């Protein structure tokens, strides 16, 4: 079946199978930032935005994005780089495998929540697992990023 959608501000038209997940469909057309870690909807590595809200691309069937707007980290590179530099500076970056999904969720959180508390940040980011660095560095990076971008 054919689906038409907006991918990173560009019109996109691709053929997908009825049981094809969005992550597979996007990787097939070169969106290799999307990682597949657990494949059980737990790790958040495959996070992308659907209409500017973070979703698990491994769990959304590709046909559901027909007529909608999908954003991957390739579509928000400037903002992603800003946060990624803070992430590295805070020692919250090691193997980097989880970073694209984590960054997409953090950027979405920044758009959605106003002055989130530590608890609200942790709750929002609970679906992004990192097995390298622990979460304290990430928390510092998120708070620094929110401060820097607010000012």
């Amino acid at each position, binding site marked *: 079946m054919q689906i038409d959608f907006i991918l990173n501000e560009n019109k996109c038209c691709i053929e997908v199978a*009825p049981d094809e997940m969005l992550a597979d469909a996007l990787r097939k057309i070169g969106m290799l930032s999307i990682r597949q870690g657990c494949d*059980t909807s737990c790790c*958040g590595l495959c*996070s992308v935005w659907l209409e500017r809200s973070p979703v698990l691309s491994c*769990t959304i069937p590709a046909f559901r994005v027909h007529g909608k707007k999908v954003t991957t980290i390739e579509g928000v590179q400037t903002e992603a780089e800003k946060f990624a530099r803070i992430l590295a500076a805070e020692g919250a970056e090691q193997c980097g495998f989880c970073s694209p999904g984590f960054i997409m*969720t953090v950027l979405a959180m920044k758009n959605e929540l106003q002055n989130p508390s530590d608890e609200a940040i942790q709750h929002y*980011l*609970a*679906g992004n697992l990192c097995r390298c660095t622990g979460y304290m560095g990430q928390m510092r990076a998120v708070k620094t990023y929110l401060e820097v971008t607010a000012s």
Partner: protein
Amino acid sequence: MFTIDELVQPESLNEAAAILTDSPEVVVLGGCGFLKLGSRRIGKAMDLSRCGLGSIEENTEYIQIGAMATLYDIEINHSINSLFNGIVSKGVGNILGTQFRRCATIGASVYSKYGFSDIIPTLMVLDTEVELLQNGRMPLKEFLDKPITRDILTNIFIKKDDRQASYQNMRNASADFPILNAAASKAGNQWTVVVGARPARAQIAEEASRQLSEMTEDTIDAGRIAAIAAQELSFSGNNKATAEYRQAISQVLVKRAIEEVLSCK
């Protein structure tokens, strides 16, 4: 991972009903989060996302939740949050991460009657009804007890009343299914105590609820009621917890739920 040979996407509920009648084997898709954990081979699948079932609406009597509303829509809905001590939002807020809750739908979560469900116990302690395309509207408890297999859940209605409620759960890890959950509510003098993830489907602890309803607030012994609930309900073991462990934990969770309701003024 599941496979689908053919996908149909009705544009209306009438069209969906016709498909259900013509193709009894059709599988209605929800968020697909649980489906993808298995390897089911689906001949014909039906996607309801074009049927306009994604909204949450409110009138003076009810909150109406469309079957395709996501758990996250429910979690952040102001009207739902402001009622029943925020129990519905708390019930869904523990389920994996934000991104997953934007994929999972309330309709599939309820229609599937999952034993591990976090949302079913919370809805059971409220005055909740479900609306089915062919079987009509009925109380949630009646739907859970009936062996309905061929229908489409279209809406969930939660009656707006002044009840206070509490939801408790225990997980081995935060991103795991609950090994047990419990909910309690009080509307006037009427208490309802529910225990879920036993690991069988959530069930009302009828005797505990009855005894609780006969007591005045200052004579309630939450620990004794929790023990009654633990005795009257059945528990089983699986790879997450033994039956004995669940039974013991149920006493703690039910007691906490009752005490939390009592603390609400």
